[in-house]
């Protein structure tokens, strides 16, 4: 029998390019949402500028990491919305495109569109913080890692909801608790010392602590650097692999 298109299931990322492009087209219509994605960060930057201008550098680094972290929230909302309201998963997954491509298409489509304001933020940060190429690359790597983590968690979470209305409260709670409460926007040492390992094990604050240390804003012991790096990488790899597994598994409802 004849099939056109992808006939076999050997390529894991079949359909990714086209679906990523689809998501970019879909997302790019939301100019207001793109601007609004910078809201919390901008407000905090303004507060810091007024209340503690000396901490502006830290706040900028935090704003970049927070921006990448909250992309997971968009992945959550988008994946749930197109599944519940549009039945896009039925359309795309009952076909040759792979479930991995479906998850990664949503995640990277959102990245491509929502990274634009983050680049603006990075450019502004360059006026406030003077960094070397190596520091810049490290920040980029940390931001990318936080994105992989949050997009994976966001996709997995999206599968638990049957109704869009329930999502908003949970997701904003989750992303604000992990993105604003721990030391992302403020110096790592202002976080209670006894709870330092907790902050170092939460990916957004771990990435922020490492960035703060690399810019000389904060001193970290080598043990703390190790804990933050190992924790960040391990959690990110784990959730990425889990999200891929979960994407395959949730093609079929129980």
């Amino acid at each position: 029998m004849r099939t056109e298109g992808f006939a076999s299931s050997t390529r894991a990322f079949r359909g990714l390019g086209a679906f990523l492009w689809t998501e970019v087209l879909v997302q790019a219509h939301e100019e207001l949402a793109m601007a609004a994605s910078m809201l919390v960060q901008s407000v905090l930057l303004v507060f810091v500028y007024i209340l503690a201008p000396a901490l502006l550098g830290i706040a900028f680094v935090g704003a970049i990491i927070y921006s990448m972290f909250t992309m997971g929230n968009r992945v959550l909302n988008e994946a749930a919305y197109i599944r519940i309201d549009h039945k896009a998963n039925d359309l795309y997954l009952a076909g040759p495109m792979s479930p991995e491509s479906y998850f990664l298409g949503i995640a990277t489509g959102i990245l491509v569109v929502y990274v634009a304001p983050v680049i603006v933020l990075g450019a502004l940060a360059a006026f406030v913080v003077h960094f070397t190429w190596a520091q810049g690359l490290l920040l980029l790597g940390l931001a990318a890692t936080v994105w992989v983590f949050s997009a994976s968690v966001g996709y997995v979470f999206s599968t638990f909801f049957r109704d869009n209305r329930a999502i908003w409260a949970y997701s904003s709670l989750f992303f604000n608790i992990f993105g604003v409460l721990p030391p992302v926007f403020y110096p790592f040492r202002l976080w209670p010392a006894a709870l330092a390992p907790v902050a170092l094990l939460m990916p957004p604050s771990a990435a922020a602590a490492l960035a703060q240390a690399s810019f000389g804003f904060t001193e970290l012991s080598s043990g703390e650097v190790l804990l933050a790096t190992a924790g960040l990488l391990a959690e990110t790899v784990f959730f990425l692999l889990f999200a891929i597994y979960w994407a395959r598994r949730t093609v079929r409802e129980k």
Partner: protein
Amino acid sequence: MTELALSSEDLRKVYFSKGAPPTEALAGVALEVRRGERVALLGRNGAGKTTFLKIASTLLRPTSGRIQVFGYDVDRTPEKARPYIAVVPQEGKPFFHLSPREQVYTYLRARGLTRETARARTEEALEKMGLLECANRLSVTLSGGQRQRAMVATVIATEAPLLFLDEPTIGMDPFARRAVWESLRTLTRRGSTILLTTHYLDEAEALSDRLYIIERGRVLVSGTAEDLKRSVGGTVKVLLPGASSMIESFRSFGTCVDDGDALTVIVTPERLGELMDLAVRSKLLATVGPVTLEEAFLRVVGRSIDED
């Protein structure tokens, strides 16, 4: 390779949801669709049509039973079946921020079709579904029926070997529905197989080679629309307004349905003359017409409800 595009045996599905008793949506469905056939699944709301389609299209796990698509076990190796299928989901919608043209094209590309094929198929499908005028408008600005046309265009453009369409013509005007019928006929002529659900019985009759009526997760009857109509005991119906009180006199001719005012009698052509004589003698107006699939459906499903 097998001549069957789809086959199921003793397929069962029980939904377990929190705080509610389990729902048996499929209670042992055996169904076969041969290659190149157009088959309609009919049944009341909640009969299990969508459940069957979702299991067959690898989107829902059955509780037990066997189901195969082109010989591949859908439950054990769903990934083998997926390249051969395409689905119009019930209540699906196109992406609101894509135009129908972008929607169809990007979908075909995501299924791995080449640029040239995707472009040509997109234009063909948009044309068939009467979407050319609004092909470049965002779907958010389209009417309900136009959105549904965009969904159908997306899926028929795949020309997949096996298409599942769950209420594909819902909300469409009579012209658009006929355009869908024509497109589906063209697809089966080109070798595709189609399983669809619909609540429009004229559609089922016009479109399908065979149909299955399911009720409470069980197949009640299957066959052609003609078989089904014959099974209700006649192919002619006589409508007798104001004859409700005379139901007993007409019972001997065949099935009588009394809607409180008019009496409908289903008869064989052989006994029609005799019945008309009685109607004339009783000074009744009579309208004679063919039995429709809708009447057969009401009879068959109604009888099954009465039995329970």
